[in-house]
């Protein structure tokens, strides 16, 4: 047994996603199993004068068909993604919404984002500075702020306890989910929505990324010897978390238990990750779950396909798992959906949960040749049936900000 009865346990009773390879968990998981690639030529803006012309765009997201409230129809795309993912997650949880007041103040909504409504901001600045307009749209500010997704979702479901966004670049989603987990464990709340959303694909932001020289113009091939950078994506990943007895009392279907959470900061460099920071985050998650490295079956890696991340992550896994690293299944699902930045760890947490429910490890696609410095089992190109009892999801962000989630089976 991993958990004794001395503390409150936290379970997942709903999940929802918006991704470049499917909207809704069913479509997303089916695409991951089949190894489908959601990366393609950018359609939503003109890339003629850009060096980077590819991304993982969300296709066929028609807000009027996907969203219920008028407020969300007027929101930024990033809030709309969060709204839809939360709608799916809440529906699956079976919670009665809007929450009655006795539950409303015992619930939280923490939905982060790497950068919030930046496409709204970019459009407004273009109008002001280039088109000479005298005013911005009156909703510009509300659409842009990085707490708007959290606020919209709390309004939708009557969540009246802690509600805010969190920001930690590519570790945002696990920080948000981990934050809700800790609040439940510590008795502040009984249930909460946690996750992140990102919709930052635009001409100006792509220019900014291009200037960092870390994007690949060709494709995202994590851990493969020929990898040459990451590819941006967009979407949202949201979980409904609940205290175990609370979920049981209302007869909810439990998808998984969130058994461990680790977070660290490298405190070293803005872009070069450290083995120590990444490995300590994994170790702290294991300790939190009271598990040993040998208990873990699958790691959904951060796996960005940059030269440095994939080597560093491999070394960090080796440091934590020792000889048990050999029997781990690892995959970087970013090879299929791209790098969703703040939202990445949200949809990857869903992939980890689904891997346990189906006992199936999704592949790392586009894997063409081994890299001697990346020498673990990354599940190249083909997914695999395998018993997955415990699954870990890694996120390592710019600035050296690390967050790791560890999921286990639904308690009997």
């Amino acid at each position, binding site marked *: 047994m991993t958990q004794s009865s001395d503390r409150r346990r936290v379970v997942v009773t709903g999940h929802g996603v918006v991704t470049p390879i499917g909207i809704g968990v069913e479509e997303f998981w089916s695409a991951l199993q089949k190894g489908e690639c959601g990366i393609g030529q950018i359609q939503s803006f003109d890339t003629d004068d850009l*060096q980077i012309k590819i991304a993982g765009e969300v296709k066929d997201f028609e807000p009027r068909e996907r969203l219920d409230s008028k407020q969300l129809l007027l929101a930024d795309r990033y809030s709309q993604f969060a709204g839809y993912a939360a709608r799916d997650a809440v529906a699956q949880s079976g919670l009665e919404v809007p929450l009655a007041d006795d539950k409303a103040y015992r619930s939280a909504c923490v939905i982060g984002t790497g950068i919030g409504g930046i496409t709204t901001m970019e459009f407004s600045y273009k109008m002001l500075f280039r088109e000479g307009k005298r005013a911005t749209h009156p909703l510009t500010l509300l659409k842009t702020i990085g707490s708007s997704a959290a606020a919209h979702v709390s309004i939708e479901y009557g969540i009246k306890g802690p509600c805010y966004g969190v920001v930690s670049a590519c570790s945002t989603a696990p920080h948000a989910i981990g934050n809700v987990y800790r609040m439940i464990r510590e008795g502040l709340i009984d249930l909460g929505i946690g996750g992140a959303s990102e919709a930052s694909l635009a001409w100006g932001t792509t220019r900014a990324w291009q200037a960092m*020289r*870390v994007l*690949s*113009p060709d494709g995202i091939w994590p851990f493969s010897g020929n990898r*040459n950078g990451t590819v941006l994506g967009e979407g949202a990943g949201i979980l409904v978390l609940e205290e175990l007895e609370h979920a049981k009392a209302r007869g909810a279907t439990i998808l998984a238990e969130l058994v461990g959470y680790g977070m660290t900061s490298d405190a070293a460099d803005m*872009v070069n990750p450290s083995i120590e920071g990444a490995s300590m985050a994994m170790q702290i998650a294991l300790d939190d779950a009271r598990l040993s490295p040998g208990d873990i079956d699958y790691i959904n890696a951060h796996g960005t396909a*940059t*030269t440095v991340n994939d080597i560093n992550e491999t070394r960090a896994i080796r440091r934590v798992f020792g000889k048990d690293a050999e029997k781990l299944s690892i995959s970087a699902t970013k090879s299929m959906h791209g790098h969703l930045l703040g939202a990445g760890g949200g949809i990857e947490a869903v992939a980890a949960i689904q891997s346990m429910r189906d006992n199936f490890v999704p592949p790392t696609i586009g894997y063409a040749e081994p890299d001697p410095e990346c020498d673990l089992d990354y599940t190249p190109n083909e997914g695999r049936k395998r018993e997955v009892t415990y699954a870990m999801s890694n996120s390592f962000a710019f600035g050296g900000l690390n967050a790791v989630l560890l999921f286990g089976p639904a308690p009997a």
Partner: protein
Amino acid sequence: MDDVATKIVEILKKNMKEPPESVGLETPLADLDIESLDLAVIVFDIEDTFGIEIPYNANEEVEDFATVGSVVDKVKAIITESKASGAAA
């Protein structure tokens, strides 16, 4: 050193915390304590100064960025190329 080389050395020095007294064409960039993010900033600065675009991906090892001299050669080649295509247009 010619004009292009002098400007490039200036840019390199501007982006170093403690620039050495002498930076020559043979100096390897690796000796100048320039890391990946510094290089992205330096490339930006060079592009801005000369009005050119330099293809550079931090994930790939590129010979053009081995020494100060190789950067100068690369920049000169791109300047010549863009002048040629400008004249043709």
